């Protein structure tokens, strides 16, 4: 469902051109579980942002469900992002003034879904993430693990096909980190395509397919 062909992403840093992604070719099937590992600056986050349509390739083609997303305009890309892709960040990125339920609701609000339908789906998501009794809490009243579960609920509320997680356990202690990983994996078992960027070897090894990146290139894929 994801097909990257000769993807190039260059940044200019002063006089020099940095190849954050250098001739990336990648095929990902629906329901896959992939981890992306590599040293800092190897381009793994850029790859994730590229797949999530947050970043545009300098060259190459990106087909998402046979559609060339590089040819879409900005509004269409935003819509595609809303419908197909969910993000989970290391820093959670919850809106601090909104409650847990409101944070989860946000993608549905942006998509223009009716309020009644939103309520039903948010309630369901809260239950699945075992956050029922935290619905009206603000992010600063939640623990790290709870915050990341709110973020996962938000990422999956539109029932996307792809879930992108950038260091999802980076800011968590071991126990809540493991909790979060289990949550992500159970979502994968139900069919979502899961791509996790991580430094953590143990976490990386759990994935069905492990991609190693160095200097913007995929050096190993197993």
């Amino acid at each position, binding site marked *: 469902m994801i097909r990257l062909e000769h993807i190039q992403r260059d940044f200019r840093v002063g006089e020099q051109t940095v190849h954050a992604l250098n001739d990336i070719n990648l095929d990902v099937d629906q329901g896959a579980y992939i981890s992306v590992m590599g040293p800092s600056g190897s381009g793994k986050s850029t790859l994730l*942002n590229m797949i*999530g349509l*947050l*970043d545009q390739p300098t060259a190459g083609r990106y087909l998402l469900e046979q559609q060339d997303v590089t040819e879409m305009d*900005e*509004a269409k890309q*935003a*819509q595609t*992002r*809303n*419908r197909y892709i969910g*993000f989970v*960040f290391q*820093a959670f*990125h919850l*809106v*601090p*003034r*909104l409650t847990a339920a409101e944070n989860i609701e*946000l*993608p549905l*609000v*942006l*998509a*223009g879904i009716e309020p009644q339908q939103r309520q039903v789906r948010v309630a369901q998501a809260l239950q699945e993430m075992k956050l029922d009794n935290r619905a009206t809490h603000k992010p600063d009243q939640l623990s790290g693990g709870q915050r990341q579960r709110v973020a996962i609920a*938000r990422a999956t509320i*539109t029932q996307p096909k792809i879930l992108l997680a950038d260091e999802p356990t980076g800011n968590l202690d071991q126990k809540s980190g493991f909790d979060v990983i289990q949550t992500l994996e159970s979502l994968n078992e139900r069919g979502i395509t899961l791509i996790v960027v991580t430094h953590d070897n143990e976490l990386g090894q759990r994935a069905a397919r492990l991609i190693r990146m160095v200097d913007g290139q995929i050096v190993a894929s197993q």
Partner: protein
Amino acid sequence: MRTRDAIRFSWNALTGHKARSALILLAISIGVASVLLLTSLGEGARRYVNGEFSSLGTHLVIVMPGRNETSGVGLGNMMGITPRDLTLEDAHALTRHHSVRRVAPLTVGAVEASWQNRKREVTLLGSTSELIHVRRWTLASGSFLPQDDWARATPVCVIGKKIRDELFGARSAIGQWLRLGENRYRVIGIMSSEGRSIGIDVENTVIIPVASAQILLNSSSLFRILIESVSREAMQDSIRFATATIKQRHHGEEDVTVITQDAVLQTFDRILSTLTYGIGGIAAISLVVAGILIMNVMLVAISQRKSEIGLLKALGASQREILGLMLAEALLLSVLGALLGFAIGLAGSWGIRQALPDLQAVPPLWAVLASFIVALASGLLFSLLPAHRAASLDPVQALQGR
């Protein structure tokens, strides 16, 4: 995104940053309030002057001796001839026209009035029974001048309240003989104190028949002839008639000036309206200043909220939606600020009315509408740049707060 959701989200963002929102609200409301306050003062002044003039009678045409306009050097000027006086006969001649309802001749002088051993200087008006109608005055008690032949010098007088109080005190003045100069006049009426009447202080005036006044002042000339037209439309007819009649009577010399109360009033009205527009405009500048403040605060706010904007983009908000959200915030602030400004401005003008009851300080409708529109426009206009900047942020960098 639904409009209601967008407004709710923006409202949430505003209440989430109370200090920032309060600052902008304050700026806008001060701008709107100052527009309302200043224009209400201008409008109050206009109404005051209007009220003054309409108390003089609305369809009033005034004939004054002498030409007021400079139309080159006339023969009269060259030879040093003063214009012909207006006489009682002139005034009489002006009554004979269909456009004229009433004519009141008027002489003015200053004399000493005394009763028993009390004396004081008073303004003497010589006129006829028509004067009270033409000037819309009212009597406190007694009766006004009798409807006599104008040439008859009846020894009666009508006095103002102040004179009654100062000369007669608590005693009844009506029926007493008041001495004016060398002659004595029987008091037949007391004028009620007029709140306002430009030109003549009714309270300090003694009114006697015009023929009596001419004898007393030893002068046959009139100070003014007041003409009341039958209607507003007939005023031009009255002016033409008065000018032509006097010219004919004065052997072809057009040596009088005929003005209408209306013309004077319109001039004042124009001046004060222009003044009100002017100060309203100056006050509106403060709204533009408020707009610049909005821009400044929003630019700061956007750099503080970069990661939130990045997040919204990651969740599928397009540039247009981000732009819309930012503008909705500005619009909400502008509307609330304008409403707050209305409240302050209306309360302020109410305060002015309480302090100065003569000044009906009410902000004119155009000022209310214009200040609202200017507040919205400046709020929106000055947030376009920050909103556009927010919308075009790179999502990856914005998420990292860069």
